[in-house]
Each structure stands twice: as C-alpha cells, then as structure tokens.
C-alpha cells in the first residue's frame, strides 16, 4: 500500500520537484520588496540573496527597527503555484498567479486564525464544553481562504459539516462560532444548530449540513435560483471524497448540466471518508474526472494561491458553460471528528509528513519571509494577536447564556400564519395570508 505522500507525488507525474516546495526555482519575484529607504532595500536584498534563511534578516531588521508599510502594499507579485493544474474536458488555467503583499498577509492571518480556532475548539471539546459532533478543518484552511478570495458575497457557498472555517471566511465572527459550538444564544443559529449547522444568510453562506451529500442538490438549487433571478453569480457546492460516491450528486450534476446552471461542485478530497481511505471507497478516485461530461480540474488544495486561481477560473467557466467540478487535494490533521483519533487508519508519520511538507500556513509563511514582506517576528506577532482574539472570543462565549426554554418552539414554523407547534385550543383559527 503506497503511503499518502508518495501516492500524491506519483499522481502528479511527471513531478521532478524535490519534496520541499520552497526551493528557489519555483519562485520568481518580479519586484524587489518595497521599502521607504532605497539604500536599506539594497542592503536587505543583498542579505536576502546571499541566504534564503529568514534568520539572517532578523538581526538586521530588529537593529534598524523600521516599521515597513507592508501590510497594505498591493504591488502585484507574480508567483507560481506548487504544481500545475490537471484538467479534464477543459483547458487548465495557468500556473502563474498574481498576488500582493497585502493579500498574502491577509491569507496568513486568516489561515492562522482558522487554525487557532480549530485547535481551541479541540480543547473545548475535550473540556466537554462542546458536545456531540465536532468536525475540525485544520489542514484544509487554504481551501476556504483561497475560495473566498476568488468570490464576492453575491456568490453562494454551501458545504457539509466541516463548516467552521468556511463560515469564518464568509464573514462570521469568532463569537458566533464559539457560542454556537457551546450551544449559547449568541451563536449564529441561536444555539439550536450546533457544529454542523452554521449559516450566514446575509453573506450567502448556506451551511452547514449533517447528511453526507445532501447539500449538493441544495447547492444546485441555489445555482438554479441564481440563474432564475439572473444574478450573474455562482454557487460553490462543497463535498468530500466520501460524499463523492453519493448518487444524488450525479443526479444533481446531470440536472445542472442539462439546465446550464452556474454550479461549481468542489470535492475537498482529504483522502479519507472518516476511516475509509479513498482507494477503498471509490473505484475511480480521480474525482475531478467523475463528472464525465462535466469538465473538471484537479487543484493542490494546500496551496491557497492555486485554490484562488482555480476558483476564479471555475467561476468564469460556470457562468458561461455550466457546471464544473474542482477537486481540491487537501488533508486534515485531526480525525474525521473529535471522536475519531485519526490514527487508526493512517500512520502518524503520514500526518507529520504532510504537516512538514504541505502545510498551507507554513507555505505562506515561507513565501512571505522569502519575499521579505514581513519579518518572522511580525508573523509571530500576528499569530499571538490571533491567539488572543480566539481566547477573548471563547471567554465571551462562555459568559453567554444558554437559549431560553421558549426557544424550543420558535422557528419550527415561520410565524405570522397562525401556526403553533403545540397547543390544542387555538383561539385564532383564521390567519391572513399575504
């Protein structure tokens, strides 16, 4: 049985790159890092070119202690994705992506926030403050962040139960997340949904679904509504490698292709459907090809820039040509959920291997450092800030009250039409319909 890493390498034949993806040949920066002081820039770049290790930069910057205005810099930087895209029935987009310092730092911050949030949720679960099911997304942050960067709030996203980070990417707050996980009133679903039912209507995030695969027809319905209302927007319907074998997926894809709906089906392939490896569940694990008549694209889901590029391409494609499938090759460090240790069906070596070689946050960190967009200390400061934010949100959520008892009966039906979910002698029999 091939190990996951080697299988991943083999699937990207011809792959001549050494395991480390941060070797010099991959990155071509067209501009030197901006700096207010040209002399300083030259000094810095000389240091930088002499060694790629970030540690050499540290004493210099701390000695000079200049606050470089990097965080808002939008000068374009051109980079290449880690691996080229593999396409099925369409032209793959280019490997070259445009980004900026601002964007990269935003990516770093967002992913660090998500990572911190998921780790904190892990501890809260173990402290029995979160009950039931808790499916953590750490390792897969690049998919949520990259996708959001390619979309607007008019586009819809719908996903399954591993939805905490997607919710955050769509504009959710940490308080809403933790309060909902702990079943409090301030939660995004008023404490009545739980981990698997995060929704944010105003930013077109449609959840948050517990039944594997059922969200895909819903997603195609969203795309139908967008076409019906002529929104010029698209829907991203996310599902996992386990759900990829659900019949309703193919049914929905068929209907979407027939009706030319702007639906993008995104398979977040983390290679395990709970405890079952993909090669044991799918006769054809090439999920991007399984749309048959629908075009597909295979993307390195640990590279946020590749995800962003693919999603931009998919959005354009779907608006013109109908449904397309994206397969995000990603990985989750935790088990399927908190009740799954995650190590009975895969080796610890595999997990640490992926963490070392492909971690999305580390990739961005090295990108930032190698392009001199921030110092290591600044990045560490961001992480500290993020940690504090998460801790504050948890403290606030812990203070939040549990829902009132009367909340049990609210929102069963849409009110105002005389329908009660309990009670025998209704006095008001007639209701006025609009």
């Amino acid at each position, binding site marked *: 049985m091939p190990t996951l890493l080697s299988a991943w390498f083999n699937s990207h034949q011809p792959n001549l790159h050494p395991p480390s993806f941060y070797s010099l040949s991959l990155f071509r920066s067209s501009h030197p890092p901006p700096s207010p002081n040209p002399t300083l820039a030259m000094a810095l770049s000389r240091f930088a070119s002499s060694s790629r290790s970030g540690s050499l930069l540290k004493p210099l910057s701390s000695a000079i202690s200049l606050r470089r205005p990097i965080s808002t810099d939008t000068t374009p930087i051109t980079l290449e994705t880690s691996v080229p895209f593999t396409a099925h029935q369409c032209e793959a987009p280019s490997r070259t992506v445009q980004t900026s310092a601002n964007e990269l730092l935003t990516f770093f911050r967002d992913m660090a926030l998500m990572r911190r949030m998921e780790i904190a949720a892990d501890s809260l679960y173990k402290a029995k403050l979160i009950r039931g099911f808790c499916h953590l997304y750490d390792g897969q942050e690049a998919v949520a962040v990259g996708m959001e960067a390619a979309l607007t709030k008019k586009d819809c996203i719908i996903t399954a139960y591993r939805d905490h980070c997607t919710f955050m990417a769509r504009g959710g707050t940490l308080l809403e997340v933790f309060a909902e996980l702990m079943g409090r009133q301030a939660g995004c679903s008023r404490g009545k949904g739980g981990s698997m039912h995060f929704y944010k209507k105003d930013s077109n995030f449609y959840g948050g679904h517990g039944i594997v695969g059922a969200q895909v027809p819903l997603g195609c319905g969203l795309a139908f509504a967008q076409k019906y209302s002529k929104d010029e927007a698209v829907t991203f319907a996310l599902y996992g490698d386990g759900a990829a074998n659900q019949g309703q997926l193919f049914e*929905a894809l068929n209907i979407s292709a027939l009706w030319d709906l702007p639906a993008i089906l995104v398979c977040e392939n983390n290679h395990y459907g709970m405890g079952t490896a993909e090669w044991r569940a799918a006769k054809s694990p090439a999920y991007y090809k399984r749309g048959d008549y629908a075009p597909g694209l295979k993307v390195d889901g640990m590279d946020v820039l590749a995800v962003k590029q693919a999603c931009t391409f998919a959005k354009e494609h779907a608006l013109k040509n109908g449904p397309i499938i994206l397969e995000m090759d990603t990985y989750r460090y935790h088990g399927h959920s908190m009740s799954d240790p995650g190590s009975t069906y895969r080796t610890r070596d595999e997990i640490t291997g992926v963490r070392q070689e492909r971690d999305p946050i580390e990739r961005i960190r090295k990108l930032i450092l190698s392009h001199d967009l921030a110092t290591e200390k600044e990045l560490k400061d961001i992480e500290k800030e993020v940690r504090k934010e998460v801790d504050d949100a948890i403290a606030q959520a812990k203070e939040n009250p549990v829902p009132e008892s009367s909340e049990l009966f609210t929102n069963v039906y849409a009110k105002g039409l005389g329908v009660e979910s309990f009670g025998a002698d209704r006095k008001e029999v007639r209701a006025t319909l609009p």
Partner: protein
Amino acid sequence: MAAIFQGVGAAAPLSSSLSNSFDSNKSVFSPRRSFSVRKRASFAVVRSDGIVNLNPNGRSAQRLVSNAVATKADGPAASSSSKPGHELLLFEALQEGLEEEMERDPRVCVMGEDVGHYGGSYKVTKGLAKRFGDLRVLDTPIAENSFTGMGIGAAMTGLRPVIEGMNMGFLLLAFNQISNNCGMLHYTSGGQFTIPVVIRGPGGVGRQLGAEHSQRLESYFQSIPGIQMVACSTPYNAKGLMKAAIRSENPVILFEHVLLYNLKERIPDEDYICNLEEAEMVRPGEHVTILTYSRMRYHVMQAAKTLVNKGYDPEVIDIRSLKPFDLHTIGNSVKKTHRVLIVEECMRTGGIGASLTAAITENFNDYLDAPIMCLSSQDVPTPYAGTLEEVTVVQPAQIVTAVEQLCQ
C-alpha cells in the same frame, strides 16, 4: 408513462391507453413506472355532490343518489350569491390555482417529471409551460432526491418552487431532503432561512394500481417537524389550499388523490384561499363526529345518507389539515356530540387516525362518552386484485356499522 385523460364527460381517473400511445421507441419500461394496467378500465367517477357513476361491468352497483354535501360556512354556496362561478374538475381547479399564483408572483416555479412539455401526468400543469416558459415550468429527469433538494435549495434563496411527485410514493426517494432539509432548515439556521416550497402529488389507493403505486405517505411524513400537511378533497378546497400553500412561508405537503381528479364542482370566480390549518365542516350533526379526509370523505358521505335514513345525525368534518390538526374545530364538535369516529385511508399502524386519536384523547377525554373508533385501511401492501383492493380500504357499509356500534 402516466395516466392520460380521455375527456371531461366520460372521464376516467386513470386510462389505460398508455401502452398504446406511448412512444414506441421505448421498449423498456422501468418497473416502477408501469401505470398501464389493463385495456378497459373499470372505474367509478364520484361527483362532488355524491352521485356515484359506476361502470356497468363493475362490482357492487349500489346506486345512491345523494345530496350529501351540506352547506358550508365558507363553501361555494355562500359566496355564489355574488357571482355565478364556474364549473370545473378538480385537476382543473388545481391548475387554475397554480396558474393564478404563478401569474401573481414571479418567484413561483414548478418542477417535476413531465410537468412541462407533457402537461403533467394528471394534467395539473397543462398549458403552463407554454405560458410561462421552460425556466418556470421545469421538466426534471427521474431523480426525485436531487430535484427535491434543488427545489429546497432554491427556496432558501427566496424562490417558491412547487415540487411535483408524479405519484406520492416516489417522494420516498426524497425522504431525506424532505425530512432533514425541508423541515428542519428553518430551525437549525435559527430562523435565517424559510423554505416556502409546496410538495404535491397524487397518492392514495387507486384502481388496481398495485402496491407501490397506492401509497399513502401522510403517515410517514407526519412526524417531520417543521412541515405542514394538507389534503384536498373538492375542487373548491383544492384550489384554495393550493393557493394558500404557495403563499405560505412554511413547507407544505399537499396530498391529492388519484381518484378525485375528476370531481366536478362549481367554484367562485373571485380570488379565494382556504386556510391551511382549518378543518371543513361538511355536514353538521348531533349524534356522532366523523372525522375524515381526502377520498374517504365521499365514502363517509355515502354512508351518511344511509345513516340519515336510519335516523342518525352524523356530523362530518373533513379535517383537511393533517399537520397540525385543527383541534379547535374538532374539539368543539366533540364537545357537542361526545362520540368520535375517524375514517381514513392510510394504514392502521402509525397512521393519521392513530395520531388524531391520541390528540383527541389527550385533550378532550372528559367529553367522550365512548372510546374513539378509528377505521383505517388494512396493514397490508395494496393488492392488485380488485376484490381484495376493495376490502383493503374502508367501505361505506363498514362506516354505517361503526356508527351504529358507537351510538348504542
């Protein structure tokens, strides 16, 4: 592969010219679609005023001329004083209701198998595709699970789809979507989304359609929190309930009956709706409350004539709202008569009657002089043979016997 109507006058609920007129290129029929039963249909047409026209070749020729439908408070008689109204069949009433709502609100769309170009297997959506176009009247492939899900997804954004199951039984394939997504999304999202879908379709025991096509799903769906269920029985309430269901913000399952599509009645010309949670008083009385819905209403009214001749005065209520029950109307009736008989078409075990019995007992036990009697269909798959099928559902004679027993 659906029933085709031959015409208004000698209309048959189900015609069997199916196999002849079907596309001859298709030689393989998937088993669950074989509606074509036999060459000559032996059927009965029940008019809404209780006249039963039986096929001469048919069985028990119990010719009962009845004027069984009493004046209703909100019935056509009351409102026909202003305008004469127009006569139509039940399926036309449904179509009228649907068309008026589609005209009124551009967000209403219809999706189902063969609803568009074909005109609907029971002609409920006839002519709509020509009028409103392919984007609003959508022909889906045979994929109930996914197109029900798609309807629900579209409803989350504000569209108001009317999802048709060609036969209610096929909606079992979409049970997950109906139960988990349709019923629960309003709650699990903390009120963020409403799902204003209408899921409709014909169900019930027809004329020898076989077990899989004679399903009564009201008993399966009744536990799902968050949905409303209504059953129509006359052209008047069919149109009214269809319109109310479409306008409602809640998911509504509208149960129609295969054998009632050709009922004729005069309905008002003006715009009207029927309250979704209200029961209909069919015939006020004093001695016993008979609760029923859908097709069994006609069996009850037939039995009522016999009962009246025997000196009983039954109060007949068509409960219409299967979830939630209109316990207000039912309770007032129980307080008056003190005896309850429930006549339903779904199965005995876990049926609507069972829930209704529990609800009445819990709330009105003090008012009951006798235990509640519940007549339901037998707990068997509906057999094909005509004689056996007849025994599966409740017949008027059984209702008469039950009332006599209750009123001892």
